[in-house]
């Protein structure tokens, strides 16, 4: 009984750990390599971006960096952090004060990059600019190419909106699916003990003690592969 409980506990722990890692992977939308944003600001922007992806299916990332970058850099970030085929990355290169984009092919018609850049530029603070940027993105996705008027009230989201962006339904469904899968696995493992008749796989139990001697061996190197992937930069630790 203790063994079974321990097994259940371990599987539960594994599932929770894996949920954490999955969550960390899918929720990274804002990359602040210049430490221009506070931790709370990053979290708020992450929530907004996640809400957009959950609601419209578009993954929109924003990156501030002090390195000289190009479109390839933007694409690398996008490919590294998501497998969503619909989305884009907006990169602000503070070193050369230039902007770079990467937009996936299916999403090209959905984003007005000029308006998005204007929205970002229109605010003096990084946080305000990015927040405005996401508002423009959301509006363009929700109204589908209709003309949008930008007002100050569009720029600042409320705390309530941020809380609602955590997608509890998704988490609950994930919990139920994982729970049910674990339930079936555990019960089937217990029920499988009703079958105790099976052929033996080997004759190891009949090995003569001390009789095993290795008479020849070699290890020949054949070839090697080198995989190189762009490194995600450190998050803002503020």
């Amino acid at each position, binding site marked *: 009984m203790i063994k079974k409980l321990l097994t*259940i506990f371990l599987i*539960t722990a594994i599932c*929770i750990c894996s*949920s954490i890692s999955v*969550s960390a992977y899918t929720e990274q939308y804002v990359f602040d390599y210049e430490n221009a944003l506070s931790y709370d600001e990053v979290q708020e922007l992450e929530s907004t971006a996640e809400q957009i992806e959950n609601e419209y299916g578009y993954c929109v990332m924003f990156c501030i960096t002090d390195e000289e970058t190009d479109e390839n850099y933007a694409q690398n970030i996008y490919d590294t952090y998501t497998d969503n085929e619909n989305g884009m990355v907006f990169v602000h290169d503070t070193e050369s004060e230039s902007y770079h984009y990467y937009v996936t092919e299916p999403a090209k018609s959905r984003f007005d990059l000029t308006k998005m850049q204007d929205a970002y530029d229109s605010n003096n603070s990084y946080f305000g600019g990015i927040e405005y940027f996401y508002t423009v993105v959301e509006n363009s996705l929700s109204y589908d190419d209709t003309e949008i008027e930008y007002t100050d009230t569009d720029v600042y989201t409320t705390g309530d909106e941020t809380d609602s962006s*955590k997608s*509890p339904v998704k*988490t*609950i469904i994930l*919990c*139920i699916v*994982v*729970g*049910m*899968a*674990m*339930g*079936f696995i*555990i*019960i*089937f493992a*217990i*029920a499988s*003990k*009703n*079958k*105790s*008749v*099976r*052929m*033996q*796989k*080997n*004759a*190891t*139990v*009949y*090995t*003569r003690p001390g*009789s*095993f*001697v*290795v*008479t*020849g*061996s*070699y*290890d*020949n*190197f*054949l*070839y*090697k*592969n*080198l*995989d*190189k*992937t*762009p*490194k995600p930069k450190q998050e803002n630790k503020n």
Partner: protein
Amino acid sequence: MPTIAEQKCPCCGGGVQFDAGVQKLKCPYCETEFEINQLNQETADNVDSINWSAQDNQWSSGETDGMNVYSCQSCGGEIIADSTTGASKCPYCDNPVVMKGQFSGALRPDLVIPFKLNKKAAKEALKKHLADKKFVPKAFLDNNRIEEIKGVYVPHWLFTCDAIGNANFKATQVKTWSDNNYNYKETSYYDVYRSGNIGFDNVPVDGSTKMPDDLMESVEPFDLSQAVDFNTAYLAGYLADKYDVTAEESMNRANERIRTSVGDALVETVKGYDSIDSRVVNMNIANGFYKYALYPVWILNTSWNGEKFTFAMNGQTGKFVGNLPTDKKAVVKASLLLGAGISAVLCGLSFLLGWL
């Protein structure tokens, strides 16, 4: 007509049986105990000279193919058994009998492991086996009755050899590092070869088609150090078969098991790699020989819902096996209940961690 041997008590004339508890022959009527060889010597001088024979016209041509007819030396009753039966009981007087011709000459087993556990132990083991298992239909537990318990000496071929094996593996080593901009993963591929010798003693293969192979392999292992030279006295009171699968026919199964073990032993020597696959094992056998032995097994039969369930217990070690029916509805119900419970716990943890 084939003849049978019957161990008779010199005190009361009753048929004696091998008693697993005291490891001696014992008369169930007067409870006198005899050493194995003692009774053989005594009975050799007092062999019953009465032989009954069947009339020539009792069986038509071909009717007795695959069966032998014996005459009980105690009551004269006719015992019909198939051609592989080596020990049985007279259906009329219940006296244990051994068909002598089945275990003589080239058919004589080299070894026999005497029963260490009796019928009562087999019943207890079945009770424990049923008590331990979950999701067995209640109706099966309540209604099933053991229809038959029989102690059977099952013929086995025991293969001993020195195996000379070699194996090729594809192995990989993975090295990871990173610099300021990139993560690197270098995978190196190797062709790995190992060869070695390993000895195997007495790998058993079931020599009877009557016994399911998987059932016999499931009650392994037997402790062959407790085996004794074959003596028909050990068969008294039990059923016994002679082999009907030859050693040559059994070799493939022994080779299969030995080959797997050789591969397992060789792969254990491959160290320092992150993955090993594509195993190819070649094997040669040297100094191979085989023996013929009788292993003690208790067989318990029961039926439920028109399906027959067979259990087996190692008559030496007490290892008990046997498939049980599963209540599928109960499994689904329990899975849903447990799943719901785990889901609730996960939701609660998610809430506490702030994911909800």
